[in-house]
């Protein structure tokens, strides 16, 4: 299997592992098995048709990236129906919600930039370089958004994802550190303080 395919399959599987984390075993396993089967069938058909691995990898990556919003929505709904006794609401104040949206916007812009590269945008020396760079640029901000989302319920995981995403963006756009570092610090700081806030269902002192 080519490196690009390994990367695309790994990205799809990692993303499933992230968003299905915390769900009941059968629900989680069913989703993982279904995506595994889909990836295998796509690879097998592409092999049989003699399609270039890079094109298959790019399509797999695009399928993963373009479905992320639906995955997150599905995760919230599956989590809510599987755990009716536990609130999944973050009990965020309006300021925190607005902060989340404001910080997610530049990250989404970067992700859109990466998807554009995957679909052929930008100037690169080779298609392989374009796909690899596009992967990074598309996935890093989405990891940071997933971290921002999770940091209230799972602070360690959330903050780790935010850090990983922000550091990756800074590295990928190293010539724009004067912009990426300050924005990155704001995002990490927001995630840190959100993670330290009152936890859902945590008893409050009298």
């Amino acid at each position, binding site marked *: 299997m080519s490196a690009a395919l390994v990367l695309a399959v790994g990205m*799809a599987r990692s993303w499933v592992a992230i968003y299905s984390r915390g769900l009941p075993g059968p629900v989680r396993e*069913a*989703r993982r*098995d*279904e*995506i*595994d*089967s*889909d990836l*295998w*069938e*796509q690879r*097998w*058909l592409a092999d049989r048709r003699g399609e270039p691995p890079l094109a298959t990898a790019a*399509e797999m990556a*695009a*399928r*993963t*990236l*373009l*479905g*992320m*919003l*639906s*995955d*997150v*929505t*599905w995760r919230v709904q599956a989590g809510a129906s599987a755990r009716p006794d536990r609130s999944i609401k973050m009990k965020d104040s309006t300021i925190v919600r607005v902060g989340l949206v404001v910080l997610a916007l530049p990250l989404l812009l970067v992700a859109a930039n990466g998807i554009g590269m995957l679909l052929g945008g930008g100037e690169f020396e080779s298609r392989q370089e374009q796909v690899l760079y596009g992967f990074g640029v598309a996935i890093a901000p989405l990891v940071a958004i997933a971290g921002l989302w999770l940091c209230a319920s799972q602070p360690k995981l959330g903050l780790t994802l935010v850090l990983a995403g922000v550091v990756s963006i800074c590295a990928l756009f190293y010539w724009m550190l004067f912009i990426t570092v300050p924005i990155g610090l704001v995002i990490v700081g927001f995630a840190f303080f959100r993670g330290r806030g009152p936890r859902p269902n945590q008893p409050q002192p009298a």
Partner: protein
Amino acid sequence: MRRKPGQLLPIELSILDAGIELAVRGARHFHGFLIAREIKEREDARLLTAHGTLYRALDRMEKAGLLESEWEDPMLAAGEGRPRRRLYRVTAAGEAARAAARAPERRGATQRRPQAGPVTP
């Protein structure tokens, strides 16, 4: 925005169209990738349906009773050296929902059809 009860989303209609077409061609069941490929070919799309969009729609449609699913025998999948498939089938309710969704189009087509009559020079 909430949709009206019984109203199908475009992806749901595409899944029902493709599933029924596959059944007509003799495939009683379909799995996720097969339906994605069928939709791509039917609609001449550039990309296969995204994983999240497809599997969320399949999940929602199964809960709504438009589809039924079962996991295939793991021994069969192991024998063919591949992961097991989740096999879906369009239910009678799914066929009815699709017919209802397509009815206005069919009525429109009938109304637009030119009336048969004498050909004037």
